[in-house]
């Protein structure tokens, strides 16, 4: 039998070891001799048994310190570095936690003007993209591993020929927020006679920029200031989930969500065909089919006084559009209309509405436009045309995977380009078709600057020297254009020359550089807003269809455009709405499902009429979806670029066309037929109703404002047999504001990263064995057609009289002095009694030994948190390791712990700032103040188990649109208007469980 010498060996730990060290354990040796003699004196029975157990060879472990000490560099002490997230083009600021010279955790940077301390799920998972086994290890030419000089030499020769011949060279990239990188690309392209940079986004906002070119003469995407808006009308814009800058928008949006904020609660109406994360947070939703959106907008615009042709629209929708128009007029100057369609006419209407209503300068900031989406669909279309005509001699792909996410025409044309170069980190679909692979650094390995919003500059610094033989794109372009320079040098030069002069606060470039490096970002001079230009609205009306199914393509919060689909943490993140993992599917409304005879999991074959691609997808019955809409998520069906993403879901990108001039879902009606059989979707939540239980409390804004005390219904608290038990110096508690929480799930992934929570895979999730310590329960209230949605983050409630603690026979879960419900993994024998006895079902059991074989991936684990073995129970600890570090720091500095110093990971990065955590024994702390909020309630508080986590009642700014803002109800009595709830809309306010 093969025995392992230690657990490390069994798990495949790579370790230098010798079988037996020369001079180990003299004591042990002598004992071994004695025992042998004694054993031989008797018979061999005991000998064999004893020896088999006693004599195992020893692992010799190495201890390898730094060679040189460095000031401020202490092994085992975390350092935080401000840098810029490269997960998408939003350019959020992150703080990267570095331990022993490598990044292990990312968190939001509160000093960064874009994200202001928030970080989304994709951002949280980025370190795992750094330590990803599927990354390219170095450059390749024609599929063969080469060294960089070889690749450069080969390309230099080819480029020289192109320079001579004047052939066209193109760089295709996603949105580039780094001016230095852009400059280096331009410098490279400048060496050719016909060199051009094409930026294209998978989730394109090109029409939005195009619309502003028509209305303001300048291609730009305005900076929307949701914090200024009293009334937000979202039209097919999932701005809290995937649109432009979700973290920044969530932060701004949440700052006005709730009755006790500094400024009155905003009202949010979402007009959409699918059920998006944003729609789930809206005070009111208007459902309509995708083809009805444009007529709806036209009606809205017309009612607001714009002269234009209006497409036919059903009368209930017409009434709703009128009601919204009325509400917008009431909030003139403080409203905001956002449109997520990639359609020029729609965006122009939207821009003009915002102008007419005077939103410019208040909610629509044109002076500091956003640079987070620079994709140009027209340029991309032109590129495809050029390529298919054989005009492009060389194409460089940077942060772009067009063979996956562009219409199939691209793939056909791509083959006609002789020199195809990819800088992708992994061998993705496009890289597989390239002649040259020149892998870029992961963004955590590079120096990068960033200007996500005009006037907001940020610096990204590397956290680690590159793991593999990759090269920074800036340096690669520098090498190819014959002007090699290090990225750091290039950025520093550009900053001295361009950025430093723009700012006025600091007198010396080095201090400005250092201050920005430490803070993460700086604000420099802003531009001026362009002027509005009157004009005829582009395009013609398109009649809404009244029958047949229509296609909605959308992005999911975790997967986004699919570029991180190879990160299992994101695949396993439950979709905030459907709670499904590891798959995409076709969403069908309950009414349509009944009509089609479908149930959850049935396979359905879908194809836009006339389109060659038919996909067979499982059905998810989605309440709140428009009855004629079938929604399919993008970003799935990867065929290359990392194991975890392969074969998960189906790729729906080919269903997008340029038919309107901009990349959008094929508008043709859908052909739908039943597929064969059904599959079990890996959903983490199967029951969506509260079953009449008062687990979540909701209330309308108006009655709350009339009497805040009415938010707390009578809560019988039975007498305790034993009374309170004593607490130590602290007593931790958490309050989650359900009005603020949008369900964005950033906390879920953040928690996984902080606490080394494993990913278990599709099958295990389908068996309901996901390991998330923090989950977000999503309940529907009201009717299936027009449900209200509640997101309720649920983690260990750290009960003071915890039912789980009593039942553990071995004292593996006991109460701490500080009110924590401690779980001691190494003491746990795994009876699972505690999990059974947990009313919240937040305890997670290690059903298997989850794999940790990859040494690369183990670099990304948090060294402060035990990696649990199989057979052990685990659960949220309130990030006790972070509390310990904070307490230790305070003690070292000889002071008391400050409020807000000890933060769990979920709270730190919550973009909505929905979580408050602290010490309730400190009467001054924020938590103590929030604990006095009349909206506070306990989930299952009636059980008398004293949870330390409490929730604030969800306040909905509901009612009819005409009384949109009860804050102002006392001031201005609303003039009678059309109520929005035409028909099916249920009044959401005042829903109580039973």
């Amino acid at each position, binding site marked *: 039998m093969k025995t392992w010498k230690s657990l490390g060996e069994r798990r495949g730990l790579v370790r*230098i070891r010798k079988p037996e*060290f*020369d*001079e*180990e*354990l*003299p*004591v*042990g040796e002598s004992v071994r001799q004695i025992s042998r003699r004694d054993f031989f004196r*008797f*018979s061999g*029975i*005991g*000998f064999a*048994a*004893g020896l088999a*157990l*006693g004599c195992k060879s020893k692992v*010799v*472990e*190495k*201890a*390898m*310190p*730094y*060679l*040189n*000490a460095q000031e401020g560099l*202490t*092994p*085992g*002490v975390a350092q935080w570095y401000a840098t810029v997230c490269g997960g998408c083009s939003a350019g959020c600021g992150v703080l990267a936690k570095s331990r022993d010279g490598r990044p292990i955790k990312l968190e939001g940077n509160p000093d960064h003007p874009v994200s202001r301390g928030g970080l989304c799920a994709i951002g949280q998972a980025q370190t795992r993209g750094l330590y990803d086994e599927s990354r390219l290890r170095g450059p390749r030419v024609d599929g063969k591993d080469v060294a960089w000089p070889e690749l450069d030499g080969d390309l230099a020769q080819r480029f020289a020929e192109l320079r001579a011949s004047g052939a066209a060279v193109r760089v295709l990239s996603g949105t580039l927020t780094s001016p230095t990188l852009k400059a280096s690309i331009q410098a490279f392209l400048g060496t050719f006679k016909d060199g051009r940079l094409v930026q294209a986004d998978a989730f394109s906002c090109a029409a939005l920029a195009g619309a502003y070119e028509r209305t303001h003469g300048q291609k730009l995407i305005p900076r929307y200031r949701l914090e200024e808006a009293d009334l937000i009308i979202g039209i097919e814009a999932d701005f809290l989930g995937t649109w432009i800058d979700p973290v920044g928008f969530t932060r701004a949006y949440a700052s006005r969500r709730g009755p006790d904020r500094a400024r009155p609660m905003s009202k949010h109406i979402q007009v959409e065909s699918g059920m998006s994360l944003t729609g789930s947070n809206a005070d009111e939703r208007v459902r309509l089919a995708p083809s009805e959106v444009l007529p709806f907008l036209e009606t809205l615009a017309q009612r607001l006084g714009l002269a234009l042709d209006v497409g036919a629209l059903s009368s209930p929708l017409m009434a709703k559009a009128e009601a919204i128009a009325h509400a917008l007029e009431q909030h003139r100057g403080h409203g905001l209309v956002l449109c997520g369609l990639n359609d020029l006419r729609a965006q122009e209407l939207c821009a003009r509405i915002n102008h007419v209503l005077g939103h410019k300068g208040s909610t629509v900031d044109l002076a500091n436009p956003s640079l987070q989406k620079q994709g140009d669909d027209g340029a991309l279309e032109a590129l495809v045309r050029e390529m298919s005509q054989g005009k492009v001699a060389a194409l460089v792909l940077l942060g772009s995977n067009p063979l996956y996410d562009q219409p199939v025409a691209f793939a056909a044309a791509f083959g006609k380009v002789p020199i195809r170069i990819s800088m992708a980190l992994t061998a993705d679909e496009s890289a597989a078709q390239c002649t040259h692979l020149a892998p870029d650094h992961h963004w955590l390995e590079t120096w990068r600057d960033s200007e996500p919003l005009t006037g907001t500059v940020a610096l990204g610094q590397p956290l680690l020297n590159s793991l593999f033989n990759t090269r920074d794109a800036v340096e690669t372009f520098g090498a190819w254009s014959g002007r090699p320079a290090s990225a750091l040098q290039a950025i520093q030069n550009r900053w001295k020359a361009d950025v430093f002069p723009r700012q006025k606060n600091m007198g010396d470039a080095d201090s400005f550089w250092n201050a920005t490096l430490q803070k993460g970002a700086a604000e420099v001079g802003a531009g001026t807003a362009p002027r509005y230009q009157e004009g005829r609205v582009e395009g013609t009306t398109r009649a809404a269809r009244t029958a047949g199914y229509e296609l909605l393509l959308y992005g999911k919060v975790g997967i986004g455009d699919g570029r991180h689909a190879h990160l299992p943490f994101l695949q396993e993140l439950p979709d905030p709405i459907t709670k499904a993992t590891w798959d995409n599917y076709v969403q069908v409304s309950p009414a349509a499902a009944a009509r089609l005879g479908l149930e959850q999991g049935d396979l359905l074959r879908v194809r836009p009429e006339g389109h060659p691609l038919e996909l067979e997808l499982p059905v998810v019955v989605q309440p709140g979806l428009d009855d004629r809409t079938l929604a399919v998520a993008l970003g799935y069906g990867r065929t290359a670029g990392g194991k975890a993403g392969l074969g998960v879901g189906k790729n729906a990108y080919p269903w997008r066309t340029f038919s309107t001039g901009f990349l959008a879902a094929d508008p043709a009606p859908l052909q739908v037929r039943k597929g064969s059989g059904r599959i079990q979707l890996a959903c983490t939540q199967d029951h969506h109703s509260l079953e009449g239980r008062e687990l979540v409390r909701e209330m309308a804004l108006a009655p709350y404002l009339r009497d805040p005390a009415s938010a707390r219904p009578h809560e019988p608290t039975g007498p305790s047999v034993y009374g309170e038990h004593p607490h130590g*110096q602290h007593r931790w508690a958490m309050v989650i504001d359900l009005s603020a929480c949008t369900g964005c799930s950033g906390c879920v992934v953040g928690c996984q990263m902080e606490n080394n929570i494993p990913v278990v895979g599709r099958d295990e999730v389908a068996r309901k064995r996901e390991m998330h310590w923090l989950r977000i329960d999503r309940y529907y209230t009201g009717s299936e057609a027009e449900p209200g949605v509640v997101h309720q983050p649920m983690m260990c409630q750290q009960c003071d009289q915890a039912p789980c603690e009593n039942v553990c026979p071995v004292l593996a879960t*006991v109460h*701490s*002095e*500080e009110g*924590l419900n*401690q779980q*001691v*993994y*190494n*003491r746990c024998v795994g009876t699972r009694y505690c999990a059974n006895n947990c009313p919240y079902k937040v305890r997670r059991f290690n059903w298997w030994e989850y794999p940790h074989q990859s040494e690369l991936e183990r670099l990304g684990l948090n060294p*402060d*948190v*035990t*990696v649990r073995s199989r057979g052990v129970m685990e659960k949220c*600890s309130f990030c*006790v*390791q972070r509390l*310990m570090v904070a307490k*230790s720091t305070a*003690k*070292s500095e000889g002071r008391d712990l400050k409020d807000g110093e000890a933060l769990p990971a979920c709270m730190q990065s919550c973009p909505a700032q929905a979580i408050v955590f602290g010490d309730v024994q400190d009467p001054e702390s924020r938590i103590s103040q929030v604990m006095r909020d009349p909206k506070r309630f306990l989930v299952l508080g009636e059980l008398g188990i004293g949870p330390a986590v409490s929730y604030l009642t969800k306040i909905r700014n509901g009612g009819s649109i005409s009384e949109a803002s009860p804050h102002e109800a006392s001031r201005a009595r609303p003039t009678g208007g059309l109520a929005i709830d035409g028909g099916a809309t249920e009044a959401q306010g005042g829903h109580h469980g039973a």
Partner: protein
Amino acid sequence: MNLRTVAITGAVALGASLMIFALSLDTRLLGDQSGYKPAQPIPYSHALHAGELKIDCLFCHTAAETSRHAGIPPLSTCMKCHETVTNKAGTPLGKSDPSPEIQKLRETYTSGRGFEWVRIHRLPAYVEFPHSRHIQAGVACQSCHGEVQGMERVEQAKALTMGECLTCHREENQKQQLAGRLPQAPADCSACHH
């Protein structure tokens, strides 16, 4: 068959099963390598440096004051002295008797490699022992590591079991309480296990 043989065989079987039982109970806990005394790449003597020359522990093990790890000093720390000191210990002033081991040290440092020391103390991964808290609380290094300043070659002096931790923490807290102060040594499980 002779009854005696039966009895003795039975006795041995009993003894062996008892032994197996005793072994399967934790006669020895994880990380208890007390007595482990491996040879190191160079025979660095704590008895000389910490004992005879009375160099403070924290002179080299600087991290102990701020980190969970006490740390093994980087070679650059050795070079603070051994840039100058190259002779064997006890070489009279003015004489030159270069130590080959110091020579090895200097060569390893300049080559940029560093030594692969053999790790002696290792607590199980589910235990967090922050050195910094203990150093700042004035706990002597010797109370866990033994009289290192007398060791020619370092060995693990104590078993470092949870019982040893608790004994010290309980005594310390008792002292604090008798003095009317708040207990400072945490007794919560999650102080060390998380």
